[in-house]
């Protein structure tokens, strides 16, 4: 046993971050015969320890006291709405919840497991084809991924089989099933598991949406609707709708996570080494600045600084941390919003989400505590590629869905009131109880476009526990996305009426409304180290390889040029498998740039 100040043996590959992207890359590269070391800043997590009942379903300890989330005391970021403001630290976790520890945000995610649409991946080209170049607002950085749906399809399929995803296909090898999302692109195979059952709230939405001529479908869920064994031999048990997905580790082995679906296989492989409590501070470069030599990290258990070298470095931390590590390591050119040069920090995007509420009659109980993170019913009528945005004058769209993930009492109590309704006192209490028993939520979960003055860079004032500058986020809602959101939400009222609503509270973004970091939205942050076809406007080529440092690949939603209407994890996983496939097939035989700049 090495003493704790010793340096681990030199691997072939270093992977920074132990979430979905890192675990997929580790699995693929050990399969290729390489020795892989994965560095994770947090602790190890397993279902048998952190996931056990009842500790795993303790709301206070879980989502409220942030058991599985990033430890802000050590590092955070600063936020501002406009470049002329002073950004201030994100001191309390609210709007978004990055993970910490093995599994990353993939341990506490919900499990909505979407593919991208064909247009999502080539949104600039598709927009110009459909509406002309002048349709794109002047300050919008609308870009293509450089990879198509057809190219990614086998990797979407692979990810679904690893995740044990429950869903209903609409089109399989050209055959229409008559079920599922009729707008979804063709697939090479069915989902590995049948769709999740509808909760009462989802069934009411499904019926109303059908009556109105929309096209409801079961949300693809990485929550197992049946027992399942994935291609790695990892087993899942059927989900019992306990309601503890989002923010929690699943105690039933039902929600896909790196911990359940990949690591049990990886841990048996002698070529794989996991080092926890390893906070990477820097990706080291050689004198040419064109080659990564390894990483410098703090071993938090011994509080010593260490370095580790390797031939290939995979940066697969959470989106924000990928961007931060690129900037502090001096890789690529930081984005400058004035000159619009540089790529690192460019095209930072989020999710344009608003949640509305519908009350059913008092004899209808919505049992909001029943739920599964990925289960629910959605319509894509305002999100699919063919939805005519021309007359509406915006780019993007939103699925609308009832995704009853399991509403716990503290969250329900804190989220009740507001918008003119009392937030405390007896009237609040009555309304809160009524809302818990008889209402349901409907989300407009929309895309978010990239803009010239929305970006990430380093903060000039605040630092993390290791003395490094914090990342600085400059973000607010923009006109195109506000109008998209308003249009989509305007249809929710009619759906609610058809559901038999006695009352609704519709929420949409308002012009000029700044992004509010105090309110939870989603943890779907994108961009900052994006993939693309041009090194002037992207940090990575289409294989997620750094244009500047070819033995560095940066995997995650940080590679998305803009935010989709869907949740990001399905695309993150597919891009990881896509990148790994080309590393195995091409890069390892001939290390170097896979696309000439």
């Amino acid at each position, binding site marked *: 046993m090495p003493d704790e100040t010793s340096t681990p043996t030199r691997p072939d590959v270093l992977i920074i971050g132990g979430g979905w992207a890192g675990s997929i890359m580790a699995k693929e590269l050990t399969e290729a015969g390489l020795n892989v070391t994965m560095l994770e800043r947090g*602790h190890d997590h397993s279902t048998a320890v952190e996931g056990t009942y009842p500790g795993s379903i303790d709301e206070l300890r879980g989502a409220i006291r942030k058991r599985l989330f990033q430890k802000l005391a050590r590092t955070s970021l600063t936020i501002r709405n406009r470049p002329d403001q002073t950004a201030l630290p994100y001191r309390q976790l609210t709007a978004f919840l990055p993970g910490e520890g093995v599994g990353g945000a993939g341990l506490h995610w919900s499990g909505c497991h979407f593919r991208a649409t064909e247009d999502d991946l080539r949104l600039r080209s598709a927009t110009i084809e459909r509406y002309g170049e002048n349709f794109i607002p002047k300050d919008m950085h609308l870009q293509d991924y450089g990879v198509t749906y057809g190219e990614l399809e086998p990797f979407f399929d692979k990810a679904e089989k690893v995740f044990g995803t429950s869903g209903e296909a609409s089109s399989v090898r050209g055959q229409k099933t008559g079920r599922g999302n009729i707008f979804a692109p063709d697939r090479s195979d069915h989902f590995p598991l049948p769709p999740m059952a509808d909760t009462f709230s989802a069934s009411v939405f499904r019926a109303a949406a059908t009556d109105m001529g929309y096209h409801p479908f079961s949300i693809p869920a990485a929550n197992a609707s049946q027992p399942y064994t994935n291609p790695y031999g990892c087993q899942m048990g059927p989900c019992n*709708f306990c309601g503890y997905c989002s923010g929690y580790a699943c105690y039933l082995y039902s929600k896909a996570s790196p911990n359940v679906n990949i690591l049990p296989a990886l841990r048996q492989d002698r070529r794989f080494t996991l080092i926890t409590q390893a906070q990477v501070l820097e990706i080291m470069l050689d004198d040419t600045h064109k080659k990564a030599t390894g990483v410098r990290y703090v071993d938090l258990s011994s509080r010593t600084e260490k370095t580790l070298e390797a031939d290939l470095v995979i940066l697969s931390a959470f989106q924000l941390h990928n961007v931060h590590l690129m900037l502090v390591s001096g890789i690529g050119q930081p984005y400058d919003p004035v000159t619009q040069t540089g790529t690192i920090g460019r095209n930072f995007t989020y999710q344009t989400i608003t949640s509305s509420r519908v009350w059913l009659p008092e004899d209808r109980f919505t049992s909001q505590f029943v739920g599964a993170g990925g289960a629910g019913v959605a319509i894509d009528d305002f999100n699919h590629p063919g939805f005519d945005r021309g007359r509406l004058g915006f780019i993007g769209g939103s699925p609308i869905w009832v995704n009853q993930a399991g509403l716990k009492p503290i969250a329900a109590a804190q989220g009740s009131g507001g918008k003119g309704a009392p937030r405390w006192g007896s009237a609040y209490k*009555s309304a809160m109880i009524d809302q818990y028993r008889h209402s349901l939520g409907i989300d407009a979960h929309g895309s978010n476009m990239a803009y010239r003055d929305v970006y990430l860079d380093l903060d000039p004032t605040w630092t993390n526990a290791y003395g490094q500058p914090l990342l600085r986020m400059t973000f607010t809602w923009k006109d195109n996305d506000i109008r998209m959101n308003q249009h989509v939400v305007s249809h929710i009222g009619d759906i609610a009426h058809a559901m038999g609503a006695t009352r609704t509270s519709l929420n949409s973004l308002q012009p000029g409304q700044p992004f509010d*970091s105090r309110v939870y939205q989603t943890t779907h942050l994108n961009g900052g180290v994006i993939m693309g076809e041009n090194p002037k406007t992207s940090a990575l080529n289409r294989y997620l390889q750094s244009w500047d440092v070819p033995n560095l690949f940066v995997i995650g939603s940080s590679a998305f040029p803009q935010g989709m209407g869907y949740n990001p994890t399905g695309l993150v996983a597919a891009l990881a498998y896509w990148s790994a496939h080309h590393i195995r097939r091409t890069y390892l035989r001939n290390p170097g740039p896979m696309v000439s700049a």
Partner: protein
Amino acid sequence: MGGAASLSSVPLLSRTAEAEPDKKAPKVPENDPAHYKPTFFSQEEYLFLCHACERIFPQDENGPGAQALGAPRFIDRQMSTPYGFGDLWYMKAPFHEGPPELGYQLPYNPRDLYRGTITPINTHCLMTYNALFAALPPDRQDEVLHDMENNRLRFNDIPGAAFFEQLRTNTLEGAFADPAYGGNHDMGGWKMMGFPGARADFMDWINQEGAPYPFGPVGMPARPDPYSSAFQTDEEG
């Protein structure tokens, strides 16, 4: 007018103040929130807390209020956890005020917020209404809380709204967290809301076509004391 009178007007505290055991008194369960002696808050601070929590979440026709649920006890205990010390927050200087959308920016952890605010609120109440907060009629207490919520009051450099949000957040946590944390006494919060507690298994109840879920709540099975240091730090290895 202030101190002693208002203390004795609160039955919950007057009982705990008398330490000598009374053998004739009916035995009350050990976990009755009325018998709790605060460890972080002073008697005067705790008296404020009991009354302020109760106004935020009052006893009414729906069921028990914050005091009967033990929310003040919950808050007192939370003050000795990492959360109370601000260990869950990024607390590095410098501290600058900014637009509300950029979030909490005070240099104070939850302990500081309570400690730095309750006495000044009482002073304000004494100067304005000639009585401590706890001795004010409920309508007047609501007025003071509204003034805090809307930032019409400020205590030294703590805006009223910052304290109010802390208090509201912790009160609701205390009403609905697992009873092991000292609030939600007898699962009263869960019963009121229709939350079935730690059942966490709805395989046969995914869609009951709008009928109510038929079972009442269960608490979490016994496990390590959530206030033991081992429980608090298990994520730290």
